[in-house]
């Protein structure tokens, strides 16, 4: 890299545009830190919209937790290396509050009980334990809790979402749950939720949909639809449908990538630049150089569009394998940007449990970066790798967010921890 004078300079470089990267940028901007964020459209498209905090602990027994905070206390004492252990419950709570406040301001209000997880219906009719749910889904949680007469709608052509399947799975204890399949207005063949959501933003489609639903209403006191109620004006779409049907309407998450992820992405991509984030989305970090003065210089993109960013510090929020923060080679697992030491099983044969569905999960799902209490990556001897480098999100080791049901909470809390760590470093 040449020492060009055209470097973009900033205090904090956030690498990654998933949930953790977005959260880190948000927290940093809220604290007047000068941030450049870079990352390709990634895992955030695959967000269900549900904000998990901690739903299962311990994973071996698959115990569902009602109160996430007591679960976190147990988790921290059982697994002291878990990223949650680097934060106090108070910090985690503040992080969630700040994050949800941003989404509320962005027109995506959430609903959460302070000390209680919420049970929501999944597209295959199982029950998932989560912490905060989008307001558009809150009605479903309430209906599930009270088992009021309820009509679930699905559509011809929509794959991976079956009202009938949901009814078969959870209808045993919910006799007044009914399912109906209808045509989505003006679309034929295979349906895609994004297209449906776009269509739902128009009043015409909503009117036609209401007309199609009405004959099936019967004695229903609430109507459940797949999560297709618009992308930008979900609250209005929801209110419109409720007015027209005269009943509460709620969304059930769909298979991923889903509209719920799009909503989050749109909220961040549109609002973060407004609060001062300089974003370089759709680009990847293609090279990094740690300079002698402790700063970093990043190369962004390739060819004629190449840019360089120089920053005092960086938050690595590149995710695990799907986000490409980690890369599994035959010889081991690599960290892709800095080539940091990765905590991983001693050899490839130990990556996976012999029993694919074993409740203990797989060791490969524990791999990642080990950190100090400022969320800075350390090597196997717990020595700092770079004093100015922080890490957040699923790239961190010693967590199995999918089985523990702590993905979003982990992303948000560790982003908070990383930004706090950066501020501590300055202080």
């Amino acid at each position, binding site marked *: 890299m040449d020492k060009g004078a055209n470097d973009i300079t900033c205090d904090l470089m956030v690498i990654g545009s998933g949930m953790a990267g977005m959260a880190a940028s948000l927290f940093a901007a809220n604290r007047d830190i000068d941030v450049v964020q870079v990352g*390709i*459209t*990634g*895992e955030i*498209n*695959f967000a269900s919209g549900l904000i998990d905090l901690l739903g299962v602990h311990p994973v071996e027994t698959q115990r569902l937790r009602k109160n996430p905070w007591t679960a976190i206390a147990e988790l921290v004492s059982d697994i002291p290396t878990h990223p949650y252990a680097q934060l106090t419950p108070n910090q985690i709570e503040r992080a969630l509050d700040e994050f949800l406040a941003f989404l509320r301001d962005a027109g995506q209000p959430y609903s959460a009980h302070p000390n209680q997880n919420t049970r929501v219906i999944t597209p295959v009719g199982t029950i998932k334990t989560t912490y905060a749910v989008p307001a558009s889904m809150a009605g479903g949680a309430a209906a599930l809790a009270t088992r009021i007469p309820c009509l679930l709608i699905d559509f011809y052509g929509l794959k991976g979402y079956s009202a009938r399947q949901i009814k078969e799975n959870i209808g045993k204890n919910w006799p007044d749950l009914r399912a109906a399949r209808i045509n989505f207005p*003006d*679309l*034929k*063949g*295979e349906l*895609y*939720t*994004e*297209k449906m959501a*776009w269509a739902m933003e128009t009043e015409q489609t909503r009117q036609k949909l209401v007309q199609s639903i009405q004959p099936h209403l019967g004695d229903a006191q609430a109507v459940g639809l797949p999560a297709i109620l618009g992308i930008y004006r979900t609250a209005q779409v929801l209110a419109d449908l409720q007015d027209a049907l005269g009943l509460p309407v709620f969304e059930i998450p769909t298979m*991923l*990538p889903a509209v719920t992820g799009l909503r989050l992405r749109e909220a961040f991509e549109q609002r973060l630049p407004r609060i001062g984030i300089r974003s370089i989305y*759709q680009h990847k970090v293609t090279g990094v150089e740690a300079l002698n003065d402790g700063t970093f210089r990043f190369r962004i993109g390739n060819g004629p569009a190449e840019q360089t960013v120089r920053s005092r510090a960086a938050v690595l929020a590149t995710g695990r394998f*799907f986000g*490409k923060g980690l890369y599994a080679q035959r010889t081991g697992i690599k960290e892709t940007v800095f080539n940091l030491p990765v905590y991983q099983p001693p050899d490839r044969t130990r990556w996976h449990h012999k029993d694919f569905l074993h409740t203990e999960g797989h060791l490969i799902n524990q791999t990642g970066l080990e950190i100090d209490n400022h969320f800075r990556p350390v090597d196997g001897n717990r020595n700092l790798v770079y004093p100015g480098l922080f890490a957040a999100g699923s790239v961190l080791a010693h967590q199995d967010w999918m089985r523990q049901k702590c993905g979003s909470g982990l992303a948000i809390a560790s982003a908070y921890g990383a930004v706090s760590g950066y501020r501590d470093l300055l202080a």
Partner: protein
Amino acid sequence: LQTETREFAAMLFTISAYLSLAICLFGLIYRIGRWFRLQIGATSDSPNPGQRLGSAAAAGLDLIFSRRLGSVLLALGKDVVLQQHLFRQDWRRWLMHMSLFYGVILLVFLHALDDQITRALFPDYASTLNPYLFLRNLLGALVLTGAGIAVIRRRAIRALKRFSAPSDHLALFLLALVVVSGILLESTQIISPSIFDQMVIDYLGDDDPELVEPLKAYWAAEYAVAFSPPVRETDASLLADGKNVHREFCAECHSPPQSAFVSYAVARAIKPMAGFIDRQHLDLYLWYLHFLASFAALAYLPFSKFFHLISTPINLMVRAAGNTSTNTPANRLTRRAMGLDACTHCGVCSQHCSVKPVFQVIDNHTILPSEKLGAAEKAATGRQRPVEAVELAEGSHICTLCGRCTIWCPSGIDLQDLWQASLKDLGCNGYSDPHSWIRTRSIARWAEEARQRRSDAEPPPPVRLADSPDSFWACVQCTTCTAVCPVVAASDDPQRDLDMTPQQIMNLLRMQLKELALGCRMVWDCVTCYKCQEHCPQGVKVADVLYELRNEACRRLKPTGPIMSNAAKKVPEPEE
């Protein structure tokens, strides 16, 4: 024998003259009639030939009584007489064309029609007198020069060489044949002792050796007549006597032969073979050749690029008349048909074509305007085979309608308008896009075709994006590409309209079923907006892959021959 031969020659001349004249006249009527019959860009309520003729006549009358007549006459002067527009483009082409144009035109009036025109204007006309003798040679030399430049031009400019047609060379060859045979004929006549003897009988009316011997000597010395046995050319007193006889009997009709600077030179060169030439009556055969070639050219005129002698000046003048009277629907159709005939296939349009570089890659001549015009003519006259229509559709859609060809056309053809009309016709006939051929078969049939052709072909193609596992390893079939695709969004039933969606095509490729993807309408309807590629969470180069597939399908499946004859014509209607 001589009388019989003469009679035969005269009969052959007369018959071939009238025959060729009749062919030429009928041809002209046919070609000019076509201006009112051919339909390019017509609609169902377009006027019939009679109405078109009426419109053209009305426009002509209107022009005569309008101020625009001035600009039309000016155009006639500048563009037809002086050919200024050619000079501005390239002085060498101007030289070539002026030589050919004036050489041929003046030879026709001065020489071919000498009995009808020249003698009427100049009662003392004799073909062997100056200035006629000199001018004939000069004009012949001009035609040869022009034809020479034309041939060199067609050989030297690579693009031009590539699409020069046999008809281009045939026209030049015919002209050259007429002129060269004429020059040779004149040369053999110069040296012919038989003609000398005949002339002596006709004009001296006396075979007194006292008169004939000196004259022979004088003509052998001065006029290169090759007598056998040779006469004494060096005897001064004989020559002086001969000169006196010459003055008395011959000089009135014979200018010095040096004026025939071409044929006299040739005569000198062939003089040693005079005996052979005279014995074999080569001059007679050259005479046959000369007039037969000339009449062939006359008969060929309406059916060849010679016709531009008539059509191009008219076209230039019609253009100069402006749009006010010619822009009616009826006259528009007529102008287009006339434009087809005004083309001289000079290739200037193609030399300046904006999409000529595409022609370097895709071997389709109809990309080039000069060739597209011929194809459009074939289409208009209904002589086009389906495979040619497919080609024309491709060429026409590669054209960007930038208008450069129209600006450059030395014949003043409104090519831009012609292309638009021709595109419309193609659309009406089912060739609405350059790759309509791909719609003629199902994806399974194309896959089969692709597999079969691969086995015939040389080694398999190198691994590209669509073949490489690296392109797809990260694909999780998340449907993001499909969800953001505007082409998918524009359809209310993608499976019906597109066969498959982008993510399904990626899946085919992952499974090494590339052949099945080649005929997918999704591949062909992709607008390369790159939304899929930008949104792909895994960095799969979706749009690049689709583009590559289209190129590969073109390379492997594009119809090149009779295979399209039954398939190309109809585009299947989408099923409801």
